[in-house]
């Protein structure tokens, strides 16, 4: 045993003071009696003076001296010289992929278990140089090779799993190479929930299992060709050993569609959910109730289009019409010469060129070679030509008052929905590359903008145009994989699912998402939702549980100093508590 601070033993001299105080206290003992006359005049007993010293050495004094001795030795910092397990180097590799967030029956995640096991390895090899690594699609070195186990413990305890997919053997090899290569380490221990295939030579794998899982492994949404809704496609895999009944809910933030699913064990089922009235462009699919791995219980999907409708306005401005459009959907007005495609072309008091395509709303406007606006005539009696037409849903046209209306030349292929005597009021036409709705009267010659039915009419017109330009792609974006931004125009701002703005370098044409959810990309062309999900491979069932026995691989031992002073201090503290209890016990009995 070695004393690191032998000078502290001088404190033992305090024992003399304790003994002195003890006898001084004993001398002042006071006893009450009923009758002093029985004691008066008695001779003090000289022999008892010496005997008193022996008798007064009570357990209390002995315990106090013991406390002093223990505390003094603790301050002297004694350590024992001994042999401890020792390796030339050890790498503890934590699988930080998203699947390590799976919760086991003990309410701990796989990552929690991996951390505990890692700390166990650190304790077993206290003097071994160690490095702590995190393996995932974005692998990193948590602690470079060091003998400072306190730092390693701190890093290990403070680390968290990522949302990325599994790391590869090549990635692990790269990590190890950055710390001196595989040969540097006598033991390389991978703490994971899925076996690394292919493995590395000498790699020990500790695999954590537990936690049953149902996963949404695919989710996409197709807008219906006829417009007015969409269909969601959800594929769910049951990786448990029992039949599972779940609710599958698809939501676009405002509306939702639900179905009940019964999944046989080990089976994968696909479901198509009709979703009438959905607007998108961002959707979430969830299975309820959730399970041990909640990440794949919810998936997101976004149509690759702007949240706002890009409206190209041609002709005179009209704030009533503009307000009615904005009330139905968020709109962005783009200049007439903007080269990018628009979701809607609105022409008011104008004539469009014949090649105009897309969704076209004509208000007192024409399209060259197809629709011609003629002279104004007195408006006739209002009359519904096609009762129940979707353009008139919720609209009471008999409230409209029109002074004059133009004579209009229209192709026969279209449908006149509403008339003013002989003249057309509302007309629609669908061609291969365009949809056209015509409101013939000039808004200023009618009371339309002042009626409550006008915004409803405009909303119906927009519904008739849905779906607006189809999504570019339905592919999933995965956490950790770059997302190309060049198809959206010049990026202005990117906000992650938690609402935090992400820094975008100028000219950046991609970014790598770090968490799952819906990102919001703001470009000069509009605002786009970008759905990002965790790699579906993370939902694969965990591997067989395999725990490595750390003690088996101890190859050599090294001399170490084992501190015993914390134990002495602890014992001293306990003895102090015992002494206090003893004293108060006696005192209490004396009072009684």
């Amino acid at each position, binding site marked *: 045993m070695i004393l690191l601070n032998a000078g502290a033993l001088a404190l033992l001299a305090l024992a003399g003071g304790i003994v002195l105080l003890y006898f001084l206290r004993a001398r*002042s003992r006071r006893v009450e*009696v009923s009758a002093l006359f029985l004691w008066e005049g008695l001779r003090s007993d000289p022999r*008892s003076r010496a005997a008193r010293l022996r008798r007064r050495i009570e357990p209390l004094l002995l315990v106090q001296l013991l406390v002093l001795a223990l505390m003094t030795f603790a301050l002297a910092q004694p350590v024992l010289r001994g042999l401890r397990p020792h390796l030339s180097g050890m790498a503890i590799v934590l699988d930080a992929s998203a699947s390590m967030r799976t919760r086991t029956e003990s309410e701990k995640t796989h990552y929690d278990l991996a951390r505990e096991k890692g700390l166990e390895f650190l304790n077993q090899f206290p003097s071994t140089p160690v490095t702590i690594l995190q393996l995932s699609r974005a692998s990193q070195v948590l602690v470079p090779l060091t003998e400072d186990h306190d730092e390693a413990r701190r890093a290990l305890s403070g680390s968290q799993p990522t949302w990325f997919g599994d790391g590869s053997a090549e990635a692990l090899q790269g990590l190890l190479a950055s710390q001196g290569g595989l040969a540097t380490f006598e033991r390389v221990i991978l703490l994971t929930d899925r076996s690394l295939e292919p493995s590395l030579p000498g790699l020990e794998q500790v695999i954590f299992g537990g936690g049953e899982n149902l996963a949404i492994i695919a989710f996409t949404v197709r807008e219906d060709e006829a417009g007015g809704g969409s269909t969601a496609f959800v594929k769910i895999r049951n990786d448990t050993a029992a039949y599972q009944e779940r609710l599958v809910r698809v939501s676009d933030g405002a509306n939702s569609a639900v179905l009940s699913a019964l999944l046989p064990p080990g089976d994968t089922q696909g479901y198509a959910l009709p979703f009438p009235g959905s607007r998108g462009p961002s959707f979430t699919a969830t299975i309820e109730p959730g399970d041990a791995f909640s990440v794949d219980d919810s998936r997101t999907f976004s149509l690759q289009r702007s949240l706002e409708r890009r409206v190209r306005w041609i002709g005179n401005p009209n704030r009533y019409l503009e307000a009615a459009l904005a009330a139905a959907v968020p709109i962005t007005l783009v200049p007439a010469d903007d080269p990018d495609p628009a979701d809607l072309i609105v022409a008011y008091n104008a004539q469009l060129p014949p090649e105009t395509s897309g969704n076209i709303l004509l208000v007192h406007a024409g399209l060259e070679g197809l629709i011609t606006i003629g002279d104004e005539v007195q408006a006739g009696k209002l009359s519904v030509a096609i009762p129940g037409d979707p353009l008139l849903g919720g609209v009471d046209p008999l409230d409209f008052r029109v002074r004059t209306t133009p004579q209009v030349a229209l192709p026969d292929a279209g449908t006149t929905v509403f008339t003013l005597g002989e003249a057309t009021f509302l007309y629609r036409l669908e061609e291969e590359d365009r949809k056209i709705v015509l409101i013939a009267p000039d808004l200023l010659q009618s009371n339309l903008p002042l009626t409550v039915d006008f915004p409803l009419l405009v909303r119906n017109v927009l519904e008739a145009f849905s779906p607006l330009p189809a999504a570019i792609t339905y592919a999933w974006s995965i956490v950790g994989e770059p997302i190309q931004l060049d198809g959206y125009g010049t990026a202005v701002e990117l906000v992650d699912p938690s609402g935090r703005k992400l820094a975008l370098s100028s000219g950046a044409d991609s970014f790598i998402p770090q968490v799952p959810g819906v990102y919001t990309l703001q470009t000069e062309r509009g605002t786009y939702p970008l759905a990002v999900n965790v790699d579906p491979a993370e939902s694969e069932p965990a591997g067989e549980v395999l725990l490595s026995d750390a003690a088996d691989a101890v190859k050599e031992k090294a001399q170490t100093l084992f501190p015993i002073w914390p134990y002495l201090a602890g014992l001293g503290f306990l003895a102090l508590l015992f002494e206090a209890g003893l004293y108060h016990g006696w005192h209490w009995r004396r009072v009684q």
Partner: protein
Amino acid sequence: MEPLIDEAFLKRLSNLKFIVKGRRKGRLAGVHPSPRAGVSLEFADYRDYTPGDDFRYVDWNIVGRLDRVLVKTFVHEVDLPIAILLDLSSSMRLGDPPKARYAARLAAALAYLGLRGLDRVGLYPFTDHLLPAIAPRHGMRQMAHILRVLQPITPAGKTSLDRALIEYIEHSRESSLVFLISDLLCKGGYEEGIERLLHRGDELVVVQVVDPEELRPTLRGSVRIEEVETARHVDLTVGEGALSQYARRLDAYLGALRGYLADRRIPYFLAPTDQPLERLIHEHLRAGGVLQ
């Protein structure tokens, strides 16, 4: 606080009653014989008939045989006034349990015995003078009254037996069976009171309550010994020698007290507080002729 006496203890007292020496002059009907003739089941004597006597008590057999008209007389049974004088000076708070607690339990037991025997019982606490007393009365309501006084007692002050006894004599109007419960650790100062009590015709029983530590002290070493009532003190180094001196002195004191009381035929009982109260009552008080 723990009750002074429990029901089980009281049940075990139910077969006991006080023995009275001679005939007493009680005021109310009771179970103890009186010097006066009266009406009871116990025959006393014959006497000549005088006009006005109740014909029911004429013994017609005697009239037939002796041709004399005699009437039977009976023992007049009266109640027994019992006074319990309880020392509540500060010396009674010493001991484990405190002497006062033991004395209060004894007083409660004696009061119960008296009241159960249809006697009147009064309680007279005292220090160096008589404290507010409970006058003798019949019935178990008196028991509750006495217990209410005894339960929370807090000894305080000095002792003066003489003065307390004289004040008692002045306060009470009739001779009684008097129980004096005290530690009696005072150097003299009780003789005059006892003499005057006996002179009035009271029957006295003395119970000396002491702590075992007072009989056989265990203290050792350098101590300051302080009298609780006066705060006077002596400093001593106590060892075997000092303790044997103490024992001799205590024996002499107790011997003198015992001798004084025996000369006057006053029953005396030493009651260390480690002796069960039941044992004191069932063994010592019965053996001493106080109870039967």
